[in-house]
């Protein structure tokens, strides 16, 4: 499993149980479409792009995304989530070459 740089951001940083917070997942990934030629070699750069992202919170899949190659390089995925107790937000993502990765963040509501 390749170690990719990624970040999960929750806004606001401090939140209460029951609050609806903004969640962003950002990852370093080329998102190559497979239709671009390399500048110097003139060869086609093979397609390599994230094709699926899942947000799993306390064991339940809360958001599922089918991603296509037209998302920008180093993509970001932002949505909201309702805080429902202490737990873990786990993001699992796969790409078209079969690479699978995950990133987790502890959810700790205050009050």
């Amino acid at each position, binding site marked *: 499993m390749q170690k990719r740089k990624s970040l999960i951001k929750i806004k606001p940083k401090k939140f209460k149980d029951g609050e*609806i917070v903004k969640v962003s997942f950002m990852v370093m990934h080329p*998102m190559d*479409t*497979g*239709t*671009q030629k390399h500048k110097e070699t003139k060869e*086609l750069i093979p*397609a390599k792009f994230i094709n699926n992202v899942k947000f799993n*919170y306390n064991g*339940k*899949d*809360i*958001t*599922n*995304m*089918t*991603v*296509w*190659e*037209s*998302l*920008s*390089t180093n*993509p*970001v*995925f*932002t*949505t*909201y*989530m*309702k805080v*429902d107790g202490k737990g873990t937000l786990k993001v699992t993502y796969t790409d078209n070459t079969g690479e699978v990765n995950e990133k987790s963040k502890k959810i700790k509501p205050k009050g």
Partner: protein
Amino acid sequence: MQRRDFFKKLGLVAAASALTPAISFASETKVVSKNTMSYQTAVDAITGGKTVTVSSKIKLKVPEIAENGAVVPVTVNIDSPMTENNYVKAIHILASHNFNARSIDVYLTPANGKAMFSTRIKLGGTQDVTALVELSNGDFISASQNVKVTIGGCG
């Protein structure tokens, strides 16, 4: 200043000069990716032929003029209670003239709390960006906006 205004007009009119965009137009590309799909085919695949109603319930935010085609911000917001009986099931973002009109399909659940999604997409040139939304009752609504993509600058 007169000269400055003249140059400003010239620049805006000369927008979209040809340099290599990060993603190709469906009509221009000779290389066909196996994901090539036209806008209408994509819509039909998503809706199964059902009617789509244009709705102001969807707030689609994309720039009128994109600084560049590689990184175009897109934000979709739908007013929805997001309860088990009434929530936004899916947000599909489409680009009318990309070789693959589909950008992303986001499947939400009531656990999301709010019907919103934001990301950045590649646009191969000036075209319409559409948010095609599926509601939990099976209805499809949509909103579109044209985005002018400028390809220029030095360096």
